[in-house]
């Protein structure tokens, strides 16, 4: 009859939003960090990002084909996964390793659970943790940023490199310093003051995307303004991290470094703005988000200060992902007008 008429449930209009636009926003938010990575680690950054994105996308496509599911690359979520994974890898990581990480991230971390929206754990962090656990040495081999040493020479976890050129003393990563300070009671302040500026601009060793605080703050602010993420999780993560770090510092300033230093070093900001906020693996309710964020920040600092690993972000995110269902259950919403009687 009227063959162009359609019926469906109300509402019949919708906000011009789609999963793709949300993901593109995140990619835009990640752009400053990617650019900073390119600036400090040159071609390596782009190679790794491209490798991770392509490998992730291909993995998802293959999974779709195997399961005879519709093509799902169009939502770009896998691109976000690839980029975040790449940004959390050491610059000199061999490409094949990054590819293994991407495949594990997408195949086991995401598609095994049913694809976008169903995964319990943050896929990028699953991939990264798998790599860290499997290839420990490769994953703790750092390089000097190209702005300091154009050769980007390797520095292994504990070595201090004194570049002839710039007289700039640098070391593996800021977190390796603080870990060493913890071990050797080195009076961390002396380290921290000198290198603080480096962590802000990004001229330090570390994972691709986590070195430049400025770039991360720009990206995070963009996401907040665009309302792609709500402020709850970043705020909770950062505040709880500062509090825990401050407790440590106040306990023993000779052993533990300044709280602010913990905020700017390692993956803390990347985590607060981009990783912990992954909506799929974070709680739904605001109260839940506070708990989740405090958990991520607290566990990160616990691992940094007391644990065996210098950085705790990936573990704390995975651990809190695991309890997200319980948090959601705990913070169940009650109707605005109270629970119904009977």
């Amino acid at each position, binding site marked *: *009859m*009227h*063959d162009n*008429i*359609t*019926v*469906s*449930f109300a509402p019949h209009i919708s906000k011009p939003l789609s999963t793709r636009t949300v993901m593109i926003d995140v990619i835009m938010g990640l752009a400053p960090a990617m650019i900073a990575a390119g600036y400090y680690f040159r071609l390596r950054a782009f190679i790794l990002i491209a490798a991770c994105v392509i490998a992730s996308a291909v993995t998802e496509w293959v999974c779709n084909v195997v399961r005879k599911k519709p093509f799902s690359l169009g939502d770009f979520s896998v691109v976000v996964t690839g980029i975040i994974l790449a940004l959390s890898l050491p610059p000199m990581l061999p490409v094949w390793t990054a590819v293994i990480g991407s495949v594990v991230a997408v195949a086991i971390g995401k598609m095994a659970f049913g694809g976008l929206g169903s995964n319990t754990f943050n896929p990028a962090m699953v991939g990264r943790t798998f790599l860290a656990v499997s290839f420990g040495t490769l994953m703790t081999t750092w390089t000097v940023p190209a702005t300091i040493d154009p050769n980007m020479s390797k520095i292994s976890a504990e070595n201090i490199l004194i570049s002839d050129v710039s007289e700039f003393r640098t070391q593996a990563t800021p977190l390796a310093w603080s870990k060493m300070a913890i071990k050797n009671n080195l009076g961390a302040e002396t380290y921290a003051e000198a290198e603080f500026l480096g962590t802000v601009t990004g001229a330090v060793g570390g994972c691709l995307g986590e070195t430049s605080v400025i770039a991360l703050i720009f990206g995070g602010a963009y996401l907040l303004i665009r309302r792609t993420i709500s402020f709850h999780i970043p705020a909770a993560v950062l505040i709880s991290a500062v509090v825990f770090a401050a407790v440590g510092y106040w306990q023993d300033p000779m052993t533990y470094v300044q709280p602010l230093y913990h905020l700017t070093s390692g993956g803390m900001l990347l985590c607060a703005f981009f990783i912990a906020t992954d909506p799929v693996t974070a709680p739904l309710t605001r109260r839940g988000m506070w708990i989740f964020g405090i958990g991520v920040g607290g566990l990160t600092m616990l691992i940094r200060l007391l644990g065996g690993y210098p950085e705790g972000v990936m573990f704390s995110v995975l651990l809190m992902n695991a309890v997200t269902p319980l948090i959601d259950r705990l913070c169940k919403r009650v109707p605005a007008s109270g629970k119904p009687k009977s």
Partner: protein
Amino acid sequence: MMLSDTMILAGILDLLSGAWPAGVIMLGLGTGFAIVLLIASEKLKVEVDPKIEQIHEALPGLDCGACGYAGCGQYAKAVMEDPELLGSCAPGGSDAQEKIALILNLQVSESGPAKRPIVHCRSRKDQRAFYAEYRGIPSCTAANALANAQACKFGCLGYGDCVRACKFDALHIVDGLATVDYNKCTGCTACSKACPRGLIRMVPFRDENENMMTVACNSIEAGRAVRAMCKVGCIGCGICAKQYDMFSVEDNLAHLDYAGYEPGEAAETAMTKCPTGVIVYRGPSAPEPRQPKEKPAAKA
């Protein structure tokens, strides 16, 4: 010879003399536990439903949890309440399954001849009219709640709520019409409860292999409206009722009295005389329903 014998004997004695404390302690342990458990099982007896007890007995009693329940006792209770859980006890295997089925069947098997589902619609997708295209949730209940995109508000929607309800893979949507595979159907009635339009009704078949005659339509629309909506719907013309007295027309819709139906000449005639061909056989070996007579189709 002698020597080796004595040596062996000595060896055994030696062994035993070293071994007796272990033997004694195990003896002690064994006796102790036997006493305690037996006394406890006497003193702390708790009354349970004998049927559950029976099922429990049929189960292996390993409390391994493979069934997803906390131990055999729990599983026994659960199976008792929901026989569909039969067969989730891996250790018990088919043995236990049969036994439980036996125990449970004693209670349920007295319901007389099996009723089996008949879908009271025979219209394929290309035989129905549509006002619009449905773009909503692919579920019959959802589509039924909306304005009728498909003109006939009484016939099969084909989004398969019944298919999802059937645990035995006995229902399929064929050309937009729910179709029962009577060889797989167990008569569990799940589908009849799932259909939002109440199209699937349980009908007493007289034996396993019978093909039952039915008026495969559910529409109480006036004949004219039916013709506009569906090529094979019942128009309530009453021809069938004139041929065979088990047919009757009420609210523009013909009904067959299934209990009184006997296969025979009269029924067959009614079937062939039906102008829209809505009287069909349904069953394990039912023939293809015939096409509607050309006249009404041309008219519509």
